[in-house]
């Protein structure tokens, strides 16, 4: 027999087993989810959720798919949040401070309240990565924000109207494209393939009978 707990889904009370995640608890209660449910594994940010435990003043945030229910938990999901996403041409922009000023000037209105960091469902130091973005330190912003699932909870708590996940997204693309070191061996290999360097080898494999390929496969050398 399961141990049951009381949860309040959008204020309405349900009794659910205590070993369920919030998402499973909603389904247990009878919700057929369409919104607020994506990968169910903590990667997609679809199931941002705000909750409060009865008697506790503090609002907490989480991903519904990654969090167990607790007794007397009030749950409100945030399946969509209107983040600001500015559009740009990645080929034309440059990794300078100006680009942030141009696209996301509101980051300079950050009041340092740290509500973003406190609310992050991934426990990231959100305010810190915004600070890096302000200074044009895109590599640090990219690293600090890397595990962001773009659920939008931080932005829902921000008095300055910052869309933190989109700022970080821009920083990571700038870093990945312009700042991270170039990969020589990759450029060489793409060129070799274009030059047809491997055509004969591939052609030979395409034409071989299966038995020969089995022989080659079973005796191939494996890098340590």
């Amino acid at each position: 027999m399961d141990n049951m707990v009381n949860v309040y889904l959008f204020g309405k009370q349900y009794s659910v087993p205590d070993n369920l995640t919030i998402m499973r608890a909603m389904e247990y209660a009878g919700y057929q989810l369409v919104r607020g449910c994506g990968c169910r594994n903590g990667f997609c940010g679809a199931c941002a959720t705000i909750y409060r435990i009865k008697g506790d003043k503090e609002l907490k945030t989480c991903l519904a798919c990654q969090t167990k229910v607790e007794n007397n938990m009030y749950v409100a999901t945030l399946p969509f949040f209107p983040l600001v996403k500015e559009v740009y041409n990645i080929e034309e922009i440059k990794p300078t401070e100006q680009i942030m000023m141009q696209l996301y000037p509101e980051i300079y209105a950050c009041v340092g309240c740290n509500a973003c960091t406190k609310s992050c469902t991934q426990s990231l130091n959100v305010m810190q990565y915004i600070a890096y973005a302000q200074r044009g330190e895109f590599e640090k912003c990219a690293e600090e924000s890397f595990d962001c699932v773009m659920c939008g909870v931080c932005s829902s708590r921000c008095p300055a109207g910052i869309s933190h996940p989109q700022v970080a997204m821009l920083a990571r693309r700038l870093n990945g494209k312009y700042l991270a070191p170039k990969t020589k061996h990759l450029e060489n290999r793409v060129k070799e393939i274009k030059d047809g360097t491997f055509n004969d080898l591939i052609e030979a494999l395409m034409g071989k009978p299966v038995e020969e390929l089995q022989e080659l496969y079973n005796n191939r050398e494996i890098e340590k």
Partner: protein
Amino acid sequence: MYSSEFQESLKAVEAAREANIAYEPVRMTAKEKDDLLAAYHPDYKKEEFSELKIGPNKGEFVPHELCELLEAHSRISAEDVDLSDVKYDVDVLIIGGGGAGSSAAIEADNAGAKAMIVTKLRIGDANTMMAEGGIQAADKENDSPAIHFLDAFGGGHFAAKRELLAKLVCDAPEAIQWLNNLGVEFDKAPDGTMITTHGGGTSRKRMHAAKDYSGAEIMRTLRDEVINRGIPIVDFTSAIELILDKDGKAAGAVLMNMETKELMVARAKTVIIATGGAGRMHYQGFPTSNHYGATADGLVLGYRVGAKLLYADTLQYHPTGAAFPQQIFGALVTEKVRSLGAKLINRDGKVFMHPLETRDVAAASIIRECSDRDEGVDTGSGKAVWLDTPMIEAIGGEGTIEKRIPAMMRMFMSYGIDIRKEPILVYPTLHYQNGGLDINVNGMTTNVENLFVAGEAVGGIHGRNRLMGNSLLDVIVFGRNAGVHAAETSKNVTVSELTLDHIAKFDAEREAAGIKTDAVSPKLLPNYTRRKSEI
């Protein structure tokens, strides 16, 4: 922290850890692998499959659950839809907003075509987002596309369509370059050299990664690019039936708003099915690592208009799904955990296999350990084996786990398990649809004109088993490829009158075959609700 019932076994694992790290298990011979698969792999359990009685693959066997959907009724009949009331009119209609659909959209846009993505959830709600371990490409000095080909062809039991596999491996380095140029961050050494590891069945270290958020990093970048380009994304809208024109060519789809259930018509010169996999079908009762919408929709849509399937009887069970705690049952534990040195250990602390056999072999080996050999650990909801994650820190140094597999660390930490110090319990989970719609090298189905397919909905690229890191690769390579060719093809297409006649035709076939069923398809979403009664 594990409770007392796990302690005895846990002690055995810890006691043997040092010796197990040093121990180099031998790989199985070809014969041992074949015997193991035949005895323990779920694909080989004949009683789990049914024969298709109608449609282009009549006479072939597919899992029961898939058979039911392939032979099912449409959600609509032709009379329900006014085909003259066209809501969306585009060159290239892309069904699915994952890695393949997004890559296709970007390339179709590059080629000057008017593309549109329709997706039943949001763009990025896809298995691509959840791919953790990495993406293969033969771009190192000691490697070549030919070696990559042989690894994948052998790993897939020599069943892949060779021309598709050749394209996959030859376009791989360029795919990495394309992603990198879009701003995808790969793990690199300070001099720019890609940090690459092995995957199961690879003979060279060619697994490129972005920590263990490889797919998420790729997917969010593609999504950002699609939005930057202003490519329309119609979200929370599913395609529930393809539309053909009077000449039998694909010419659009009937769309359904997932919330209001409103039906709409999208007309297109070419259609790309990029609907992904089928983990949420829970074949053979397995849990799954897949996202919520993985219900084989594209296979159903294609099959009903006559497109052929290839290898729809082969599924991939990822050897290491989380088996404990119950809240994350079936969630993916990336193969990269083993790439970084963690070994699989049974209840008595014994290494029972080489950790980097191909996935089908590894899954079968774990199932054997937990069944006939009775060497599994009882988790309360089934048997499992240990994956000894602390080995990673012992081999790679302190901090390796946080740096290389932060998502895994976070997932288990939520439930009080510190994978740097404690091993984790794993059991196979339904992970990948090896089979799918049959395509030619341009990405078009082999028998329905102007219908393209990309990503996990394709069959034949990998044969009967797929190597780690070749799926992220395939969604990029074949997604782009489908986008290019669908755009190119659309330039010379004039759509004739639209029709849904195929629905009645399929109904007649079902009738003639004597199949009695109430099932409707595509499935769209699984139903996990628990309702005692409802109206």
